């Protein structure tokens, strides 16, 4: 028996260990709880781990069997990316409502993939909330890959894509970023090249290296993103971005760093206005944008540089937890009718996913009575930017797919400090 036997345990503890003063006690408690809080938390990942509906054809079929038309469609798209009539009306959407009875609430909520994904999709879907959209348009690349990996897109109803399989172009059917069109159908595609004002620059631009001309100091615009900027620079240093390696990335980053003192600003969507107004003489640009601004500034030109350029596709897809997926499905296939595709291409002037529109434009040109209309449709049906030829396609490259986190980190840490300088 020890001598301590028989003493109350709390007294014994008080005798054998130093008593904690109240203040010390609070400090200690604070420290342990702080340490505990710091250590205990983690942020759970959002990878689906191969779960979800992908690959489970039955589940997808069963899901779509349950989905009925509701008469409503919430559609998020990019600004100036659909036909517009006077007064801001969208004739193709009106026609859709007339033919199908589905009312479309159309919003131009997407300014760029980065911020749309980061501030609208990610927070909602991560917490299991619907995004409020039934249909959205996301560019192929990092963010679309992420959406697929996280299982945040609803696989399409393959039995409801007749128009798509009849009329879509090879470029957008079974594309490398979405084999079998499981999740997406293309909205439009486009080229990232150089837009410039031929009068202000004073000569024709043919090469990415023309954007390193010291005479253009302060008049050059580049993009602030981790897709177009790096992939164009890879083209500029003579590398096909799709198969580029980290050593090439460093060369491209070097090219961009050398160019930086000449750059006025790294832009998001807002480069077009300064370019049209002559504040920028030359800028990285998207093909359709420049074409749309010709009315404002007839001196604008768009060129696919001789070293090559990135081509991208914006894709319609249905976010997880969408309330009206059937309506979205109906719309997606509906726009693949050549007539409808022509209505949209006529206005946006990007690479249309429906090649049959070329004949429609040619016919319009032949039948046009108005001189300006004739000129416009003749141009449109021959435009290499809307209907590129085979040899032109050879110069166009898809973005580099960054498949591992390590690759993504290396890529970002090389290119981000350039545009966020």
């Amino acid at each position: 028996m020890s001598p301590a036997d028989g003493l109350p345990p709390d007294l014994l503890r008080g005798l054998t260990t130093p008593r904690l003063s109240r203040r010390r006690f609070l400090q200690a408690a604070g420290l342990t709880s702080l340490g505990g809080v710091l250590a205990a938390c983690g942020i759970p990942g959002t990878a689906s781990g191969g779960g979800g509906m992908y690959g489970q054809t039955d589940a997808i079929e069963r899901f779509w069997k349950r989905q009925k038309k509701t008469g409503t469609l919430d559609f998020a798209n990019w600004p100036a990316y659909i036909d517009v009539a006077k007064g801001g009306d969208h004739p193709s959407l009106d026609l859709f409502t007339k033919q199908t009875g589905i009312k479309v609430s159309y919003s131009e909520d997407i300014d760029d993939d980065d911020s749309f994904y980061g501030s609208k999709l990610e927070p909602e879907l991560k917490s299991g909330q619907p995004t409020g959209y039934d249909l959205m348009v996301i560019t192929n690349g990092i963010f679309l890959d992420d959406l697929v990996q996280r299982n945040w897109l609803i696989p399409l109803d393959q039995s409801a894509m007749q128009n798509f399989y009849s009329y879509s172009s090879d470029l957008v059917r079974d594309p490398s970023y979405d084999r079998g069109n499981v999740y997406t159908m293309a909205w439009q595609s486009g080229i990232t090249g150089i837009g410039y004002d031929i009068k202000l620059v004073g000569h024709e631009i043919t090469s990415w290296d023309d954007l390193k001309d010291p005479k253009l100091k302060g008049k050059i615009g580049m993009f602030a993103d981790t897709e177009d900027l790096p992939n164009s620079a890879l083209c500029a240093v003579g590398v096909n971005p799709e198969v580029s390696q980290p050593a090439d990335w460093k060369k491209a980053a070097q090219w961009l760093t050398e160019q930086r003192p000449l750059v006025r600003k790294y832009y998001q969507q807002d480069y077009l206005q300064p370019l049209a107004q002559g504040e920028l003489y030359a800028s990285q640009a998207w093909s359709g944008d420049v074409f749309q601004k010709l009315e404002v500034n007839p001196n604008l030109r768009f060129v696919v540089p001789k070293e090559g350029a990135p081509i991208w596709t914006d894709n319609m897809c249905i976010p997880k937890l969408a309330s009206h997926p059937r309506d979205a499905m109906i719309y997606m296939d509906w726009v693949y009718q050549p007539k409808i595709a022509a209505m949209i291409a006529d206005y946006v002037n990007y690479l249309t996913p429906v090649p049959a529109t070329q004949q429609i434009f040619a016919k319009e040109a032949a039948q046009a009575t108005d001189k300006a209309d004739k000129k416009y449709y003749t141009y449109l049906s021959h435009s290499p930017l809307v209907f590129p030829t085979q040899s032109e396609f050879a110069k166009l490259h898809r973005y580099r797919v960054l498949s591992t986190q390590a690759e993504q980190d290396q890529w970002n840490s090389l290119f981000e400090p350039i545009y966020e300088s």
Partner: protein
Amino acid sequence: MTATVAQPPAVGAAPARNHRPRILSRLAPYLLVLPGWLWLAMFFVVPIISMLSVSLMTGNDLAGFTQTFHWATYADAWNQYHTQIVRSLIYGLIATALCVLIGYPVAYWIAFRGGRYKSSLLFLLLLPFFVSFVIRTLNWQFILSDHGMVLGLLRSVHLDFGVQRIDSTAVAVVGGLTYNFIPFTILPIYVGLERIDPALLEAANDLYANKATTLRKVVFPLSLPGVFAAVLLTFVPVASDYVNANILGGSDTTMVGTVIETQYFTNLNYPLAAALSFILMAILLIGIFVYARVLGTSDALEMAAA
């Protein structure tokens, strides 16, 4: 909750039970301050601790972040982005100095010459701020554009001195910051000046001080608490602003706020974003602490709270 406990003792209660209210009355101040502490704990302490915790994690958004006490993130953050951090502080200092230089005379004029129009004048001062911050900044982009009102006008009278552009330069960013945050400077200075007894100015006059001396020896020292508060209230939001640099900035004007935004929303690199925020906060806190020790008075803190 406290209200039910703090009821007065029932009339005619036995004197032996008097100790209860005495304990309560001793606890009362703590109970009253409790909501304040809870508020601080919920909206300051908890977020700060969780931010600190996030900044020490490693991982990625897909696989999740786990706590590894990875302090190296701080070194990476500083190495990659110290230019932007230092730039934010410099822009912050310049813009704050400009705000005080412009704001002091305005506040002085309203306080001493405003008369019965004082409140209308203050209202006029705040009027533009009923329009969205972003929209006003976008308008500056328009005004400062290469062929816009400012440069176009200067060029037409040949006073442009060969300046090619203002938009997308550091000048535009600092100008935007000054414009957007100047009410935060004027109002505290105004409060400081307003408290000065006009009789003191008369006294200075009676003692043969001329106007400049009065300003230097009487008005300015008495208004210092207001200036102190104004500098605090201006510098902190200016240094962490990201709207002006985004809209009015160009290729070498990015501030740390933009970087944090990109890391958080675009790259989903929460640890780096948290580390950057922490570094910025630490620098600001240390700066403010030193500043307060050197210049501050209890009066000044009162003014900051006003």
